[in-house]
């Protein structure tokens, strides 16, 4: 995970990361002197909050520390968005590896899935962002060059088919290798997550993703209080700060509690199949074993856990 990807312009300097920098700085200067040295930085702007700056990586937080962090984030949401949210962090379930499949023969390109994602995951309203991009494709091939993601006419249009693309939750995730500070990683259930408080916004992961599945928060997300989804989790749909990366998490705040992802529930055609790849009786396994599924850009060796198929 810490290996840097040779094909990307990453400064290979594993000895220094932010955490270690803070630690050594603290040790050499002494705490008071160090605090004084950091003062100008912490005074910079009210948005750079000292607690946040000093927060450890999510995976190093003890349950007690997590509780403190989550409380702070809930207070921030109250202050900035005027909503009472709850931030949880459901852990990966035992013996569960998530997979998703999409039937291209029945998808009509209605973008209902993208709309559901937008709402569920507290995306910025102005950009109408979501983690799903639906391409209108020419029948007879898979050529994204000829794909159009901005169509706005009744669907399905003659001679076209529709291909929604979101994070493929790759087994060999190039985005994870590209991150110079381990702010993004793959969890036990196969979901690639981002610690938004650790991300420094360098966007290497965005460049590394062959599926354009990652989004950057150019601006602070604007969402009216009454539209905020208050059921949030640390690693998924909590409102992201400005300047960090975000991506589809298979709605882990829902799916780790056994629920279906928001995009699947919204799909009016039933094009989407979700489930546990480790359960031989699951729907997703049935699809993989009985349909001719394929993955996008297989030649890259990313090993997606997102499958596509056509009915014969």
């Amino acid at each position: 995970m810490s290996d840097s990807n040779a094909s990307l312009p990453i400064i290979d300097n594993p000895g220094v990361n932010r955490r270690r920098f803070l630690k050594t700085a603290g040790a050499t200067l002494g705490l008071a002197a160090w605090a004084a040295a950091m003062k100008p930085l912490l005074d910079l702007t009210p948005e750079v909050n000292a607690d946040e700056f000093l927060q450890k990586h999510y995976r190093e937080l003890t349950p007690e520390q997590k509780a403190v962090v989550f409380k702070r984030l809930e207070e921030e949401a109250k202050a900035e968005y005027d909503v009472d949210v709850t931030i949880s962090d459901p852990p990966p379930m035992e013996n569960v590896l998530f997979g998703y499949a999409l039937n291209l023969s029945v998808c009509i390109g209605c973008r209902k899935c993208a709309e559901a994602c937008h709402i569920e995951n507290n995306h910025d309203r102005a950009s109408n962002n979501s983690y799903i991009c639906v391409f209108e494709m020419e029948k007879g091939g898979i050529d994204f060059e000829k794909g159009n993601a901005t169509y706005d006419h009744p669907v399905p249009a003659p001679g076209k088919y529709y291909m929604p693309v979101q994070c493929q939750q790759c087994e060999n995730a190039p985005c994870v290798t590209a991150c110079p500070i381990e702010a993004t990683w793959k969890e036990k259930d196969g979901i690639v997550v981002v610690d938004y408080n650790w991300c420094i916004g360098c966007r290497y992961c965005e460049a590394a993703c062959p599926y354009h599945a990652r989004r950057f928060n150019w601006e602070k997300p604007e969402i009216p209080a009454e539209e905020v989804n208050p059921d949030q989790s640390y690693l998924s749909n909590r409102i992201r700060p400005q300047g960090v990366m975000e991506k589809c998490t298979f709605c882990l705040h829902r799916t780790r509690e056994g629920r279906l992802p928001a995009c699947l529930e919204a799909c009016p055609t039933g094009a989407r199949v979700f489930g546990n790849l480790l359960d031989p009786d699951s729907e997703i396994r049935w699809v993989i074993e009985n349909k001719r599924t394929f993955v996008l850009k297989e030649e890259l060796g990313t090993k997606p856990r997102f499958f596509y198929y056509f009915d014969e």
Partner: protein
Amino acid sequence: MKISAGKMLFFVGLIIISAIAAQMYASVKQRERIVSPPQAEYSTLFPVKINAPKPLAEIATDQKDAKGNAILVSCQSCHSVRSPNPQNGSAGPLISFHQDLDFVHGKLVCISCHNPEGYYADFRLASGESINPENVMTLCAQCHGPQFRDYQNGSHGGMTGHWDLRKGPRQRNHCVDCHDPHKPAFPLFRPVAGPNDRFTPHQTKGTHE
């Protein structure tokens, strides 16, 4: 009483054999426990409910109410006295009733699915067996086998609820939630608006470039 050496040998043998058998049984048991899924957990699965189709009770007439909506009449009010014409296969010749009926479903005719003996409000399989409106999926499955197979395996038709039935129930669509049986082709949709992000140049607000 004296026990002969032969008998003694027999009993000892019996004890040894039963010990071995018990051992084998225990190890089989053990293996079973390892390979089989945790039964207790799976025995409490939540249900998968399928939406019930609305019962067929009324049909539009050619009369309109003050708001311009077609006046409905119960099937039974005509069909209990007026015997159907099984020769009729389309809505065209029906000039005073069934006005909203747009019938485009292969080469089927009314009585391919409707049971005239039940005033058309219940259904009939190709075998002649009459079926309850709740089980109408069986009727569709007579011709749409692959779709029904996919449906049974959770890969056709929308659903909500839980992927993990150990955690909660699931609600599934019925055929007629998405397909009008008289005109089953999925209708055209106006898509939800797409994103206004920087990958779609003609839509950007011009704040970042």
